[in-house]
């Protein structure tokens, strides 16, 4: 068999193939649900209800989507320039650390100043986290996939060390957790009595900003050129290494904002379970969005809905909530396949 590029993918294809991807994902998960001894349809209904069946469910989904928008954007930006940032998890935790360090009284500033200051510091720290692997890639030719992956483990141990050492909450009954951040460093709730917070709004602003950068600015143009063909980009006079550095700073900064938003908006303090793999799920979110920054918002809400819905379903139907992770991973693989098939035609002879 061989693949031939279709000159122009038709609109129908662009719709049909992703629908097919979803269908395959549903079939796979249905089989697993059956294997777990439940019937698929009621389970999917429970997932849908749990994700969006009530105001409470919907707000939970949006709350869960918030860090995924940030990590999804981080991955989308980096992958556009073919900088394989698999380290959003580490950058997220560094964001959490900086939020706690600056937000627990180190800076006696009022909220309107303190929050932007923390956000800038968080972005710088996260950016620097990714700058390291980017420099190793450009200077020494070290594959950034492996270094960013390994850094995830290093950073988690580093955070664990801080939480059992300098950042340990003296009132925490010995648990490895930090102090709560001060009220002035907290992001307010959007609706009283709900967990839904202004981090979501910041995420939307970030998504729009990234869309604008990619579409309208010379930097966005450079990033796309470097991602598509670094050799040709260099020949045309685009400073490839410099663009990769800028990409690393932006991507790392976005991922770190996820940590900021979780600490300052939701949890209030830093623990070792701040992220149930938001960094890795961000990869799925970005791929489902085909690396489109505005698509990331939709994909993040979709993926968050699956997780939130599956939690609710699991309590009611007894199917393990890991079904959500399986669904998300499967949808990643089916979606990249669908995108490919919509652009290429398979000729068997």
């Amino acid at each position, binding site marked *: 068999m061989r693949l*031939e*590029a279709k*000159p122009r993918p038709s609109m129908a294809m662009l719709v049909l193939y992703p629908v097919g991807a979803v269908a395959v994902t549903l079939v796979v998960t249905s089989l697993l649900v059956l294997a777990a001894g439940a019937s698929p349809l009621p389970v999917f209904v429970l997932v849908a209800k749990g994700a969006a069946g009530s105001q409470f469910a919907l707000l939970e989904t949006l709350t869960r989507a918030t860090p995924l928008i940030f990590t999804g954007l981080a991955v989308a930006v980096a992958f556009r320039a073919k900088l394989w940032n698999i380290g959003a998890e580490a950058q997220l935790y560094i964001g959490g650390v900086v939020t706690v360090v600056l937000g627990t009284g180190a800076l006696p500033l009022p909220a309107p100043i303190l929050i932007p200051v923390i956000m800038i510091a968080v972005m710088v720290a996260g950016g620097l986290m990714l700058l390291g692997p980017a420099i190793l890639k450009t200077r020494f030719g070290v594959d950034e996939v492996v270094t960013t992956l390994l850094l995830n483990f290093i950073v988690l141990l580093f955070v664990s060390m801080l939480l059992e050492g300098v950042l340990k909450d003296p009132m925490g009954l010995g648990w490895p957790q930090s102090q709560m951040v001060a009220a002035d460093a907290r992001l307010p709730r959007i609706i009283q009595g709900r967990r839904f917070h202004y981090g979501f709004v910041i995420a939307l602003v970030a998504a729009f900003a990234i869309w604008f950068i990619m579409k*309208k*600015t*010379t*930097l966005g*143009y450079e990033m*796309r*050129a470097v991602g*598509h*063909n670094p*050799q*040709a*980009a*260099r*020949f*045309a*006079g*685009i*400073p490839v290494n410099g663009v990769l550095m800028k990409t690393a700073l932006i991507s790392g900064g976005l991922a770190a904002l996820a940590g900021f938003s979780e600490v300052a908006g939701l949890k209030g303090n830093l623990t070792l379970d701040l992220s149930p793999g938001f960094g890795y799920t961000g990869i799925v979110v970005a791929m489902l969005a085909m690396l489109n920054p505005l698509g990331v918002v939709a994909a993040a809400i979709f993926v968050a809905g699956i997780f939130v819905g599956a939690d609710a379903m699991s309590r009611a139907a007894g199917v393990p909530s890991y079904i959500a992770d399986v669904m998300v991973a499967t949808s990643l693989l089916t979606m990249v396949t669908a995108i490919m098939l919509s652009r290429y035609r398979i000729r068997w*002879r």
Partner: protein
Amino acid sequence: MSTAPSDSAQPVLRLSGITKRFGALVANDAIDLTLERGEVVALLGENGAGKTTLMNILFGHYVADEGSVTAFGQPIAPGDPRAALDAGIGMVHQHFTLADNMTVLENIALGTQSAWSWRFDRRGARARIAELARDFGLAVDPDKPVSALAVGERQRVEILKALYREARILILDEPTAVLTPGETEALFRTLKLLVAKGLSIIFISHKLNEVMAVSDRVVVLRGGKVAGERVTDETTRQELAALMVGREIVLPQAEPRAPGPVLLELTGVSTNGEGTQLDDVSLELRAGVITGLAGVSGNGQGAIADLLSGMIAPSGGTMVVAGERITEWSPRDALARGIARIPEDRHAVGSIADMSVMENVISERYRDPQFSRRGLVDWHAARAFAEKLVRDYEVKCPSPDARIRLLSGGNMQKLILGRALDPQPVVILANQPTRGLDIGAVSYVHERLIEARDRGAAVLLISEDLDEVLRLSDRVHVISKGRLTPAFARGERSLAQLGELMAGHGMENAA
């Protein structure tokens, strides 16, 4: 593998009614071709005439939509290189199919022993290679890693690969493109020997003089069809050229002009990097002069092109552009000083395949005030510019939003030419500007280069096609092993003398 039957009346190879379509394009249209035992048939045609597609079908890389192939009277299963190999067909590809991480012996014997055998029979392979090398005069060191071989040696390994498999039919795809004139002659001697031993050969080329020198019969392809078939002894170069092109095209010939001031000067320049590098090179590019650089591929042309493009900086010597000595040097610096670059590889270096025509045409100038302000790209200006280039340079292109990969080679090159020439550059680097183009596009590119020269630009033309260099250039240098001969005026050296120099003989006293 079957041996040739004694019945010599039957052709060893017969292609009947081969048709292959790629979407709307008909690459091969009902092609018939026969090959007799002990015969050399030249398959002549321009780039894009369908030669390579036809051979890829024969060798099983592609499957024809219609038609059939028989070898020694037996049909060959389509779409399976193994079937072609088993039928006794060997192919020497234009781009060698050798694995650099393995030895000559390993490359030759690759795939000839049962994959499930627990042991690779090195000794047996070595004996056979030695025997073949002796019989056919193809000396190679079987234990040398392929990565250490020169181009000519690699080609010998490719031929040995086919002979090792007892090929009776050998297909050579543009085999002389990478050889020096001397190596080409050696190849022709080898081919004569192979034919004398009963092999049959298909020789694919677009060079008329080679076709005349080596073949018994010529089949000319044009636009995917057989345009004609001639016995070599009964035809002329002129007749073949007419068949190949199908219309009268006069390639422009540059008339000399009075040279202007020196615009770019290299003095004793050396470079560092991969591949053949420059060694103490001095060169002057003058306004209104096309300076040609002749040489066999891989002798430092890449380094000099990289240097002028700004991809590498000199490691020694001085470089002066427009009277100013260069200290900082990058592609952007080169562009800023008015050097236009037409790169050798338009697909990998000259364009970004998955970006649009509009995005590609601004790639060298997106920071100019014309195309961006305060970091924001002016896409209206970019679109207008793309439309202007499409118009001015006669590019066939569906829309400025189309991905550039959808353009044909000729159209892509015209666009790159437009991008390079539009800002009225003072120095133009044209590296293999016509490789792989059909003759119409070649003549277009040549006209534009001459036009730029007449406007007062200094042009450096790097080409492996000696005819092209001699036709266009006012002055010619020969490059060999990273060194340049002094410049010769047009007509000062004969073709044979240049060939000698290209092979690296007499570089020292060339002046």
